[in-house]
């Protein structure tokens, strides 16, 4: 056996009850695409898995008053095929579609991608670019609310304790001023089912030709997704031009700190590719921002 027992609560309250009655022996499982392989390596018969993937409220995607809410148990497949998300947060759809394989996308969840805290979880990188807030509850009744980037504790380590806390949803406050666009880029050794050499999420907010806000996230070039803040700083408040994009891309590349990786590639190549991906990502997001202003609020 890989674990002691397996519970399938159908409501959040039930799930929290299980966790609190198990006193630390419970372990939240969503899609299990990261957890089960871990358990195969190291079985934990002392643990009881609490499967939150059957709680309907955690599987919803909604858009209310410019706030996009994505349930933590939403699968990559359903995020990747959501029309609302495509219109409002294109990068997330692109990110969800580039996760693993069909089977993994059908099974894996958005919440799992964040809590696994791998440095280059595709959807997590997209969410960081949108400065999404994670919301949830702790067994002591405390509600949680935290920007995703702050949930990363280190390589593969999340501040979320799966024995005590459940992430319920991610909230993205969409820009209301100007027009915005987003993009997700990925470089990998083959076209499906492979680790990213690099990935990159970009969100750009425009007012006419001026960039009024911007977020650039690159991974894995650090133990956690890397916000290229100095590159963002170069762009914000400026009129778009190719030279500026080039300059910001170079800045992101300079500040990124990839290492030589047997599986992902040499540091030199990856550092250079940060520039390429950021440049392509910015160009695509800006292009999308220029046409997005026509999309009405649903």
């Amino acid at each position: 056996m890989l674990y002691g027992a397996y519970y399938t609560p159908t409501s959040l309250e039930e799930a929290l009850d299980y966790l609190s009655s198990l006193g630390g022996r419970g372990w939240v499982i969503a899609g299990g695409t990261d957890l089960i392989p871990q358990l195969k390596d190291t079985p934990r018969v002392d643990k009881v898995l609490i499967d939150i993937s059957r709680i309907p409220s955690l599987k919803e995607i909604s858009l209310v008053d410019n706030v996009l809410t994505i349930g933590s148990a939403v699968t990559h497949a359903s995020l990747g095929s959501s029309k609302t998300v495509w219109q409002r947060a294109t990068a997330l759809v692109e990110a969800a579609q580039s996760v693993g394989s069909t089977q993994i996308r059908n099974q894996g969840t958005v919440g799992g991608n964040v809590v696994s805290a791998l440095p280059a979880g595709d959807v997590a990188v997209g969410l960081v670019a949108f400065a999404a807030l994670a919301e949830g509850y702790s067994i002591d009744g405390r509600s949680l609310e935290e920007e995703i980037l702050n949930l990363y504790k280190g390589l593969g380590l999340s501040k979320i304790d799966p024995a005590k806390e459940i992430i319920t949803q991610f909230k993205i406050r969409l820009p209301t001023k100007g027009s915005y666009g987003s993009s997700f880029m990925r470089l990998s050794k083959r076209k499906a089912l492979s680790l990213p050499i690099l990935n990159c999420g970009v969100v750009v907010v425009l007012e006419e030709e001026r960039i009024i806000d911007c977020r650039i996230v690159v991974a894995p070039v650090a133990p956690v997704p890397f916000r290229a803040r100095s590159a963002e700083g170069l762009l914000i408040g400026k009129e778009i031009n190719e030279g500026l994009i080039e300059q910001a891309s170079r800045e992101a590349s300079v500040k990124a700190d990839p290492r030589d990786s047997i599986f992902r590639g040499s540091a030199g190549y990856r550092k250079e590719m940060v520039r390429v991906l950021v440049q392509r990502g910015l160009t695509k997001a800006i292009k999308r921002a220029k046409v997005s202003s026509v999309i009405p609020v649903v």
Partner: protein
Amino acid sequence: MENNLNLGLSEYRIIGKSVPKKDARDKVLGKAVYAADIKLPGMLYGKVLRSKYPHALIKNVNMSKAGKLSGVVKIVTARDIPGVNLIGRKILDQPVISSDKVKYIGDVVALIAAESEEVAREALKLIEVEYVELSPLTDPEEALKPEAHLIHEDRDNNILAHIKIRKGDIKEALKKCDIVIRNQFRTPFAEHLFLETESAVAAMRDDGSIDVWGATDHPFKVRENVARVLGVSLNRVHYHDTTIGGSFGGKKDTAFDICSRTALLAFLTGKPVKMVYSREESILASSKRHPAVIDHTLGATNDGNLVACEIKITLDTGVYASKGDDDWGVPHVAAIFASGPYEIPHVKIDSISVYTNNPISGPMRGFGSPQVVFAQESQMDELARRLNIDPIRLRLTNALRLGSQTATGQVLKHSVGLTPTINKVAERLKAVVPTYPPPAANKKRGIGLACGWHLVGNGGGNEYAQALLYLKRDGTLELRTGLCDVGQGAKTVLAQIGAEELGLPVEDIEVPDPDTDLDFESMNTGASRVTTFGGNATIRAARAAKRRLMELASGLLCEPEDMLEWKEGKICHKSDPHKEVSLKEIAKKVFGFFERSKLLIGHGFWQTLPTLGMDPETGQGETMHAYTYGTQAAIVDVDLDTYEIEVLKIIDAHDVGKAINPVGVEGQLQGGVLMGLGWSTMEEVIVNKGYVLNQSLTNYLVPTAADCPEIECIIVEEPNEMGPFGAKGIGEAPVNPTAPAIANAVYDAIGVRIRDLPITPDKIWVALHKPISDSEGRF
């Protein structure tokens, strides 16, 4: 080696017609039975404890904790082995269980039989092994130095084989060349990655003999290895091959290993035992494609005539011999094919295989050819560019044709279809290239060409196969050759050949999986030899069967044999149309009420001339009865920012002599190209200081369906005068030219030549830029 039949005929009833593979339906429906599917009452599960280090002394193995675990039935170490603690194909140097020393990271220290797989796995953790770590030898260059430790203490040095080819006067010839190109090429360890990992089941019979079920492409060698390890005679081991989930040459050594270990546990416990390796274990246990370092010198005249070729091939054969030996092993084949399918008057080749503490290198699709073809064809491309000659023309100028002399001095007398494959690929390129829209602004397109040639059979004289044909009670036939269907379509092709000869439908010939109690030995399934060797034996068995059936019919019809004739599966009277008898009727009469299930009606045997062979010092001689030739072109786009390579299309033309089952040939061409594409662009078993770093499919990448380019297959047929209906082997050849075709296309696109496989964007970038030092990045 008499010629075979019907070469003049253009139209056959079955030969040359595409028929579905005999095993496809069962595989698709999930009905095919693999060794891992077998369950026997009271069956135990076996597991192996592998080494922690690539090179270490074993000081002590403490099994007391593991032995106390409930459900553990037996723990076996080297001293429990009743027979000889060695397995192998020709050179026996791999222990079933290491006793005092581990020599590579996959070596086995103990075996466990337990009541369940979980218990067995748990028990592994409880075995305490004390090691004294030794430093491993992992670089063949280092292993060649006199001060290097001996991987096998009973040998004089670490050289397993040194094959030489000497033709003409290389020194003088190179001096006279207008142009000489020297380069070094490197290729990596590659994994066969058969879908089915190693599996075996073994069970004792009441009479003390043992049944073993497994998946191998060399059943009789498995029997031999199991018998040796158990210390019993060959006839005490009944080996049954089950459905084989892919082999690519790899299910030899690794089948000897798992079958011997499983049999050993069954033998020592008296109970049935099953063992199945996980993917991670399989990557440690199975042999790999030999990594090669190739120093290649090619000399030519200004007008593109090849004059001289000097090649040194250093193969890392890893820890155990497998087929790295000098008896038509991988270094042999690498040497024979190294100077390409070209006529070159002066050739000097040294092909050396060297023992190291790395994983085992062994036979893998191409058997030494992919490595040397990559070097040779990259050099040909470079030569064409330096001389400003069209690469197609350069190859046509030098191509082997009828009457040409190979590097080993063999004069080619038949079936040399290289030129037509070059012409057909060139023709298709001309037609296809303009149909592609121009590449995106940030991409450049390139086209690369490469030729290749390959063996048909192991090589050397007296290579044989045999076939048995039985008449069954229902009037259908059973064909047994001892050769295996590893997915290449052997069952179908052999049945087609038998059916054509006998005038029967393909469905009327059943081809069961080999069984050492029921088959005759036909040597290995490999070396692209099954269609030719097995086919020739089948034709002979069919002819014998016809004679036998004629005899039976004569008795049944009370007519002399000379009044009867064979017509489409029936025997008819030449003048009386009422007198005829079908196979079904013969069977009915022969078997009557007796329960004899089948009657042997034909045996066929075919072997190559004893004169085939090579001089040990000069390598001169006739090596094979025929060769397979091919040409591939790759059309690629290279991204100028990321250096990603997108292979848009591969055009592959191969001369197969005669396509017995064209759809099967196409399957081999497509599969070979895709395997070649993986090896060219992403595959590499990364071995660092003797440790395998990518032991799972997360990091050992092979192409997915999404990475598969369009593959256009062209079949060329230059009849093999000694092959069945003119056929030659095609299992391996198509894997060979793909890497250089892609490498040459990348050069064509961006002017960067990568001589170190796999060709990755990273390597292209490094070739174009100076990399930053390791210390600069931290994450």
